[in-house]
């Protein structure tokens, strides 16, 4: 009885991938396991299949071959890659890339909450601007939007903010107001706001209507219901796609190099335009992007765990 349980639990691992690796490492054959069975208490053998072992070995082999080819190929110039990986200008570009990602996501999410609420409002005058916004920012390429913001000074050379028929609050050249930096941040954040708005909206819609009704019956105002009842429950739905959006944003920031923003990509391109090591420098950038993406994926998993519903569905 005891042997059966131990062996069974050992081999019938619920996660098939792990049991496959374990079996390969431990090298126990089916026959060895079967030998532990007795006529009264036979052993359940449910280890990896032969085909799985061959498949895994083949995949690992091909992977190693490709890796070897890449490492050995002199055209990749790995010494250049490692020379420049921690170059101060590269790190400076990396810093801006991270900052743009964080800032654009923060502004984008704030915008998205406003847009989502407007979009779901019963009043047409609130819905109309929100729908138009989404239509425009989702309907045009981000690259074009960035160039557009960058060239805003060309369209509106003078920017004056004044109270209608009243005093002037601000007046100046658009070139001072819309620097490449503001154009980049504005472009990324406004675009992100449009995409996040749909995510926030689906989160809001997932919240039980009955709870909102109960809140209304208790005399809570709409804004209080949004902040206290709806949004805290919507975050659970919003977090996983927001993680994806952030990872996407990290790489979208590379687009700002076209408007001469000193981000990671721009930094490596500046170097390679001098040294002509285009591919090695792009590898430098990619290694950083990959590292950041891995960190974010890890953090996303942790965050999702924290917001996991605690045994929902227990309601009758």
């Amino acid at each position, binding site marked *: 009885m005891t042997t059966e349980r131990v062996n069974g639990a050992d081999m019938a691992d619920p996660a098939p991938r792990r049991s496959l690796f374990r079996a390969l490492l431990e090298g126990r054959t089916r026959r060895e396991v079967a030998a532990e069975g007795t006529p009264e208490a036979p052993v359940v053998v449910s280890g990896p299949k032969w085909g799985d072992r061959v498949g895994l070995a083949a995949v690992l082999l091909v992977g190693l071959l490709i890796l070897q080819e890449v490492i050995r190929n002199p055209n990749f110039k790995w010494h250049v890659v490692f020379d420049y990986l921690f170059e101060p200008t590269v790190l400076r570009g990396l810093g801006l890339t991270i900052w743009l990602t964080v800032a654009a996501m923060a502004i984008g999410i704030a915008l998205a909450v406003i847009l989502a609420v407007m979009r779901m409002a019963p009043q047409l005058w609130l819905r109309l601007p929100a729908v138009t916004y989404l239509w425009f920012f989702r309907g045009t390429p981000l690259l074009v939007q960035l160039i557009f913001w960058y060239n805003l000074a060309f369209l509106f050379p003078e920017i004056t903010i004044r109270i209608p028929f009243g005093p002037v609050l601000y007046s100046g050249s658009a070139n001072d107001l819309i620097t490449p930096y503001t154009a980049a941040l504005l472009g990324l954040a406004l675009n992100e706001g449009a995409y996040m708005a749909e995510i926030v909206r689906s989160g809001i819609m997932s919240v*039980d209507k*009955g*709870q909102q*009704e*109960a*809140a*209304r*019956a*208790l*005399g*809570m*105002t*709409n804004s*209080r219901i949004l902040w*206290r*009842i709806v949004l*805290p*429950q919507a975050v659970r739905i919003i977090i996983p796609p927001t993680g994806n959006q952030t990872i996407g944003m990290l790489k979208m920031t590379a687009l700002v190099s076209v408007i001469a923003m000193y981000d990671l990509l721009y930094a490596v391109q500046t170097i390679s335009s001098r040294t002509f090591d285009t591919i090695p420098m792009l590898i430098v950038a990619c290694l950083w992007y990959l590292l950041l993406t891995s960190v974010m994926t890890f953090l996303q998993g942790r965050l999702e765990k924290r917001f996991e519903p*605690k*045994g*929902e*569905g*227990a*309601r*009758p």
Partner: protein
Amino acid sequence: MSVPMVEATRVSKSFGTVEVLKGIDLTVARGEVMCLIGPSGSGKSTFLRCINHLEKLNAGLIKVDGELVGYSRSGNTLRELPSREIAARRAQIGMVFQRFNLFSHMTALENVAEAPVGVLKRPKAEVRDEAEALLRRVGLGDRLHAYPHQLSGGQQQRVAIARALAMKPKLMLFDEPTSALDPELVGEVLEVVRQLAGQGMTMILVTHEMSFAEEVADKVVFMDGGRVVEAARPEILFRSPRHARTREFLTRVL
């Protein structure tokens, strides 16, 4: 004579082209317990939801404690109040739903304390003590920090009642509070309602529990097809109803 707690006159309500309430006239005196009964789709829930303005009216008046809940009147027209004012008036009317509708991200205690702190702006510590006392009163003194999904249906509904009571309402509305419960859990919820009736709370209760209605109600109202067919003291309505429709309904459910 004092102002009745609820006074409904010629209340009409349509959803699109379907007229769901066709001129309801009802009064509920202070401290009175009124039970609403009637077949499915007769408009009981809709009427209840009109009282605290969760639904808008098409015509007619509903006054709670002498005051219109969702409207201001000028001559023969009613105009909807700003949502803040409606919210303030709703805060004085408690409502308990068939499906409990507890805030699922909050513990029992937080559910009860949320509105007194957030809406009435009362001090947290004081509200917390009161909320604890209320939960103890409904028999949940040991489940203060449980989340809704950790509670049985009957326990959830008792939290929902405590949540409504925490606002010190003048009037309590119950929409089939036991219909979503397993039979063995119905009693514990009805016991809480029975206590409230004993303490003189004014209540309107939509229910299918006929024997309970007979026991606690001061007045039973039978609705059908968006109209009040018959309203009478429970012993009269259940024992010797005057209308054929009431008799027919009662023979079907009893």
